[in-house]
């Protein structure tokens, strides 16, 4: 079942830079896809289009049946409620506790207080942070903060989890833990995962489908287990 579809998508920024040129790709429900490429390859633009931080200049992007480029600014929340986003810089609110940060995502949606609690606890248990609900982000390590960010992204039970360089700021061991958490979400909940990264070790070890973007073009679409990163060195 198609969940995400890029149809001849191009993106030209106002300053004339072409970030993506005629990209077409489909991603099915439950897949785990890495998006790799060098800095400024268009990888970030690709990811940002999934949650409509950028709109395509040409072509259409469909996410969960919604035409992303056609959503008005005031209706973007409809798309964002279907997806969870994990950021490289975590984007946690420093004045809220771990629990409040995760609950924030549900409060924004207007959920009942008594429904929020079990969902938040559930999400925090999944990322292994149940013991730290009263801590503030500043008191946590980078890996723990990223796990809070993942918990916030999955608390709404989205169909798609978008991870934009989630291990970019973390050391290899912590990255390993984070990948385990993300992989489990994919396996246990059937959440479709799209993850941008330039960590070759992770890509090599995980053996998942890989989309390689080079200079704005989809240079390769490697099926599960057929990609080895050494050639890109």
């Amino acid at each position, binding site marked *: 079942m198609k969940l995400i579809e890029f149809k001849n998508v191009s993106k030209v920024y106002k300053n004339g830079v072409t970030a993506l040129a005629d990209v077409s790709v489909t991603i099915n429900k439950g897949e785990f896809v890495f998006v790799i490429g060098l800095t400024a390859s268009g990888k970030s633009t690709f990811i940002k289009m999934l949650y409509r931080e950028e709109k395509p200049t040409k072509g259409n992007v469909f996410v969960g049946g919604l035409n992303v480029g056609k959503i008005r600014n005031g209706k973007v929340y409809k798309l964002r409620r279907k997806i969870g986003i994990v950021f490289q810089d975590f984007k946690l609110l420093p004045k809220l506790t771990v629990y409040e940060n995760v609950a924030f995502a549900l409060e924004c949606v*207007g959920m009942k207080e008594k429904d929020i609690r079990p969902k938040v606890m559930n999400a925090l248990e999944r990322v292994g942070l149940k013991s730290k609900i009263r801590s503030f982000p500043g008191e946590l390590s980078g890996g723990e903060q990223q796990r809070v960010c993942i918990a916030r992204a999955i608390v709404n039970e989205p169909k798609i989890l978008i991870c934009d360089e989630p291990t970019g700021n973390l050391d290899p061991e912590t990255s390993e833990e984070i990948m385990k958490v993300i992989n489990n979400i994919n396996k246990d909940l059937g959440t479709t995962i799209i993850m941008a990264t330039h960590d070759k070790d992770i890509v090599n070890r995980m053996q998942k489908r890989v989309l390689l973007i080079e200079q704005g073009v989809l240079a390769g679409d490697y099926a599960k287990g057929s990609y080895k990163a050494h050639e890109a060195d």
Partner: protein
Amino acid sequence: MKPIRIIIRSFRDAFKSVVRNFSLSFASIMCTTITLILVAVAIVSAANISNATKLIEDELSIIVYLEKETSEEKIENIKTDIESQSNVEKIVYKSKDEWKHELEDYDDTFDTVLNYLEDNPLLETFVVKTKELNKMEDTANYIKSISGVKTVKYGEGSIDTLVTVFDIVQKVVVIVVIALILVTAFLISNTIKLTIFSRKSEIEIMRLVGGSNIAIRLPFLIEGFIIGIIGSIIPICVTIYGYVILYSQLNGRLFTNLIMLIKPYNFVFQVSGVLVIIGGLVGMYGSLKAVRKYLKI
């Protein structure tokens, strides 16, 4: 149920963030306070000047003295003639006996002198009220030209100029009030912008986790409202106490009996109401304007 929950949460969040970001909220509140005090002063002056102008204008009328021995028929004719003038609002016949009684009441000397004379030496008159003060002179001149009219008398020159000056001052004050309100809006919205700028990331995250624009705006809207209302407390106190004290110190008049101040009760409350409304609205406007910028992500 869902909208109500969002509203309740917005109130909670708004109060929370006024308290949590107290130093910035305080700056916004002080800014509101200072500008609203200026607005209050301007409104009070404007209202008083317009009130005084009106009172003086009401009192100004043309007195038409008729020739002695004018027949009743002729008096009636003169009355219709004057009434046909477009600038005439009201015309009242005032007989010489009425004048006599009035003068007698006014001063004992008149009483003695008038009673000494056998005949009433005064003239029959009309008291004419005009619609527009500026055209009073023209009207008076016209009435003077009617046959049977001996002379006319109207507002002394000094009062005339006073009214003109008041007219100008009144217009200037109205402009000042409007300008002050605009400046207040600008200042408050800028200060609130600073408050909200510090919470840019919060708005961003709300957008990214799927908060609708209304749900994002509402807490900020309420926060701006709260800041505006709190900011109007001191100006209201200044208005109420200040004006009441001023009124009693001046015995309700300014310089002369001509310029009467507006009675403080009800008036101060009306001004307070206006201040609260300005504070609240401007606060909300400021925060809406500030949030809009960050809703594009």
